[in-house]
Structure formats: structure tokens, C-alpha cells
């Protein structure tokens, strides 16, 4: 087992030992159960039936919004809790460099986000295929309707995770870093309305977060290529990463 893997396993152990993750998973199951219950009741009252693929895609779309916020919370917490409990000292007096520690945390967050989303997707699809009508089509529709869109929105989710993570390193305050990421996320739509016709709009990060539009064959801004979007996206992500590493490395720990 490499040293880095060991660090990631440590972070994973800490996240899974806290209450947040199990509680959040329970919350997701409750949401799913409620949706199933509502649909079954609706059908028994004579309402129209739902296809299992359609059901999965709607439910997953809703829960992934929750998971987006949840991942912002844990991306902040994985940093701020160490400062709050003073365990940051124990973490940083080991052979691991500060950059390595930071990277192990970031990788763990990504693993958690993937795990939660994929687990939810799997459970929802299983339940839907057992309970609802699957005559309209099977797995390949699931790919088109749920799996692919999820991977195409992942860059957007990752961006806000990076924002929360960097804000947490900068501020060391849980409330502040969650707020920064959530507010930016919810104001992004409005912000775009003000700036979408400016010539420099394509140099902001916002048009490059939605990769679904490329899949649909209509680029977010006329004339830009996916390569350009990918490059811009990578640039912003790298900038956030660099800021968090530099600040984290230089900080005196009290």
C-alpha cells in the first residue's frame, strides 16, 4: 500500500466515522422511499403509470442537487474540522508534506461524491426496475437518461467542490466556506444573465461548466470548441488548487 493510498484510507475512515455521511445516505433512502410511495399511491388512484427509466432519471436528478450541496459541506468540513478540533497539528507533524495531505483530502472528497451518486443511482434504478414498468426499454436508456448526464454534470459539481475546498483552506470557517460555494452556485444563473453578451464572457468559468450542451451538439457560446472549454475549465480548477496549496503550505499552525 503506497503512502498516498494510506492517507486516502485515513480520510475515508474519518468521513465514514462521522455521522454526516450515514445520515445523509439515510436521508436519500427516505426521499427515494417517499417518491416510490407517492407514485404507487398515485397509480392505485388511477393515475398514469411511470416507466422505470423515467422514474430513475427524475429521482436521480433531484437527489443529485442535494448531493451537490452535501459535497460542498463535506469538502469544507474535511478541512475546517481538523482546524476546529486541533487535529490539524497531529496531521501536519508527520512525514507527509502539506501538499500531499491536501491532495489526499481532495481525492477522498471526489471518491465520496462518486460513491454517493453511483450508489444512489444503483439503488434507485434497482427499485424502479423491480416496481415499475420496464417495457419501454432497459439499460441503454438508463445510460442516455441518467448515467451519461451525470458524468457530464460532474465537472460543474467538481468546480463548486473546489471552490468550497479552497475557501475552507483560506478561511478555516465552515459556515463561510459553505456559504461562498453555495451562494456562488445559486447566483451563477443570475450572474450569467448580466454578462453573457460581454466579449469576455467566454473567459469566465461559467460557460465551461455545462458539458451536456456539447453532447447535445450546441456549444454554450457560438463558435467555441470543446477543447477550448476543457482548457478554460482546467485552468480555473488548477488556479483554485494552486491557491489552496500555496496558502496551506505557508500557514503557521496555531
Amino acid at each position: 500500500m503506497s503512502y498516498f493510498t494510506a492517507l486516502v484510507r485515513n480520510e475515508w475512515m474519518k468521513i465514514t466515522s462521522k455521522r454526516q455521511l450515514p445520515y445523509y445516505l439515510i436521508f436519500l433512502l427516505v426521499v427515494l422511499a417517499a417518491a416510490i410511495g407517492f407514485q404507487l399511491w398515485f397509480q392505485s388512484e388511477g393515475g398514469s403509470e411511470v416507466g422505470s427509466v423515467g422514474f430513475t432519471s427524475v429521482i436521480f436528478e433531484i437527489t443529485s442537487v442535494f448531493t451537490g450541496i452535501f459535497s460542498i459541506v463535506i469538502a469544507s468540513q474535511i478541512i475546517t474540522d481538523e482546524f476546529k478540533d486541533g487535529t490539524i497539528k497531529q496531521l501536519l507533524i508527520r512525514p507527509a508534506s502539506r501538499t500531499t495531505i491536501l491532495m489526499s483530502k481532495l481525492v477522498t472528497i471526489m471518491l465520496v461524491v462518486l460513491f454517493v451518486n453511483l450508489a444512489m443511482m444503483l439503488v434507485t434504478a434497482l427499485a424502479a426496475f423491480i416496481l415499475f414498468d420496464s417495457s419501454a426499454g432497459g439499460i441503454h436508456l438508463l445510460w442516455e437518461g441518467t448515467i451519461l448526464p451525470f458524468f457530464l454534470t460532474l465537472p460543474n459539481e467538481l468546480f463548486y467542490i473546489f471552490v468550497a475546498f479552497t475557501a475552507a483552506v483560506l478561511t478555516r470557517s465552515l459556515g463561510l466556506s459553505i456559504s461562498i460555494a453555495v451562494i456562488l452556485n445559486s447566483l451563477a444563473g443570475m450572474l450569467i444573465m448580466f454578462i453573457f453578451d460581454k466579449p469576455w464572457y467566454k473567459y469566465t468559468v461559467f460557460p465551461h461548466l455545462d458539458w451536456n450542451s456539447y453532447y447535445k451538439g450546441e456549444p454554450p457560446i457560438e463558435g467555441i470548441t470543446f477543447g477550448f472549454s476543457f482548457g478554460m475549465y482546467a485552468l480555473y480548477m488548477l488556479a483554485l488548487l494552486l491557491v489552496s496549496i500555496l496558502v496551506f503550505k505557508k500557514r503557521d499552525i496555531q
Partner: protein
Amino acid sequence: MNDIVVELQNVTKKIRGKTLIDQLSFQVKRGEIYGFLGPNGAGKTTTIRMMVGLMSITSGTILIEGHDVVKNRAKAMAHVGAIVENPELYKFMTGRQNLLHFARMCGKDVSQSRIDEIVKFVELDQVLDKKVQNYSLGMRQRLGIAQALLHQPSILILDEPTNGLDPAGIRELRDYLKRLAREENISILVSSHLLSEIELMCDRVVVIQNGKYVGEQILDSKHTEEQQVTRSIQFHVEQGEAAAQSLEGTSYQPVQVENNVVTLTLTRDQIPEIVEHFVRHHIKIYEVRSIAETLEDKFLSMTKGGHIQ
């Protein structure tokens, strides 16, 4: 193997123009318990933070097993176990998970038998699978020591380890540390603002104040014997000057004469001698009082004697 485990060379720390640590140098030898003494705010924690790489060093060098803690951090830290201020542990995990966590971090394999050995050493086997939030402070302190020892460091750094412990806990900790130094040949650096505490467990002590080196002293266990300890004794008399005069030509010299209070530095056996002396010289004594010395006084009286044997 080199006999010096830790070496500070002219270490200085400045924050926003304020000098917290000023040209501090000292060495810790292998297998010794080294006291790091200073009043509150002297800069002990600041120094320790620099030693373990939590704080940058403004100038000077810190070597651990010959490795510069700044330039060769990973190698230096591989030899260090530390508790800075409080035993910070993950309260939401069990003692075992905490140990596993720190075992994975130390960069070399820690065998299960080593973990068992340490757990036994700090006597936590009974509670190892309980969450740390249910531990008493003494248990946390011991778990803190256990995690610091997992990788068999050559230096254990403890910042005010007795803070918050009751007398029994302090005694227990003292015994652990002595056993550690003896059985595993580990050097231990213990910071404290209490001389009495340092006296009881350390082989040598360095004293700092306002971030500056004050002095270094070898402590001998005999020194703690009651008869040998000198302390300030105040004699409240009718006429201070007369009392001081009566002492002229004797081997006793007052440290201070003020408001008819004569202060002398004496051992226990000398007190009745002085009383007798004053009575013989018809000096009226109203009160004899032993003054708890400040750390500074005590250290100064320690070093003034030149040696403590």
C-alpha cells in the same frame, strides 16, 4: 549513532516585527529527559511548533537526528513523536482507529504487535474499542502518547503534558516517561512552567524567558531532598537595619532588607539557627515566613550556587 538527537542553533521567530524567540540554542542528548522551562508566554509552545514544522522559522536551524526540519522535513519528522499543547485526537473514532490512523501516517510499517505493545504500555487495552469522546483526560493523554510512540521515534516532544491532570495522573505520567526513557532509550523533551514538576522527572533543564535563553542546569535526584533545598525566608522584625547589622560577619547575608523585613536564602536546617541568632542579639521577631519563590528567583538561586549536587 550520534549522541545528540535534537539541536537548535540560534533559532529566531518573528511575527509582524515582534521577536517571540530570540537566538535560542540547545541540544537534547539521546535517552535523556530534558526539561524546557519558562513562565507563561516565554515561547515554549512557539519553539515546539517550529521544531515539529507547524511554524516557519525566521532564522536559525533545527536539526533532528541530523536532518534539518525545514529542508529535510520528511526524514526529520520520521524520528519525532509529539503532543503539542493538548492530546488532539479524533473524538468520533475509537482509540484503535486513532492508532491505525497515525500508524498509517508515519511512513513506515507499524506491525500489529507493536500496536499491541504500545497499548499495553499505556494500559489502554480495556477501552481501545470505545470512542475517544468517552475517554477521561488522563486516558486521552495516554492515547496521545501511544500514537506519538507508534513509529519508535528517537525524540518525544510533550508540551505541558501534565496540564489538567490530577496529582495521581501526573505521577502516573511521570513514571511512564521515566520508564520510556530508560527502557526504549528515547529522548523526551517536556515543557512546563512549573519548576517543581520538571525537577521530579528531568535529567537536565533549559530555562527560557521572553523567548531568550536564561540558563541550563543538570538536575540531580539528591537535589530534591528537603534539607538541600534553599528558599527565601522572611523575618519580620522590630528593626530591620539592626537585624541586618547583627548578621554582619556571619556567613548569612540578607538578600533584601525592607520595611523591617529581612529576607534570607536558607535551607531548612538553617532557619532555627537564624532565629537563635536574632534572639541572642535581642532582636524581636514577630513572624517568620517561607516565601514560595517565583520560577525566576528559584532558577537564579539554583544557578548562583554554581552547582547542584
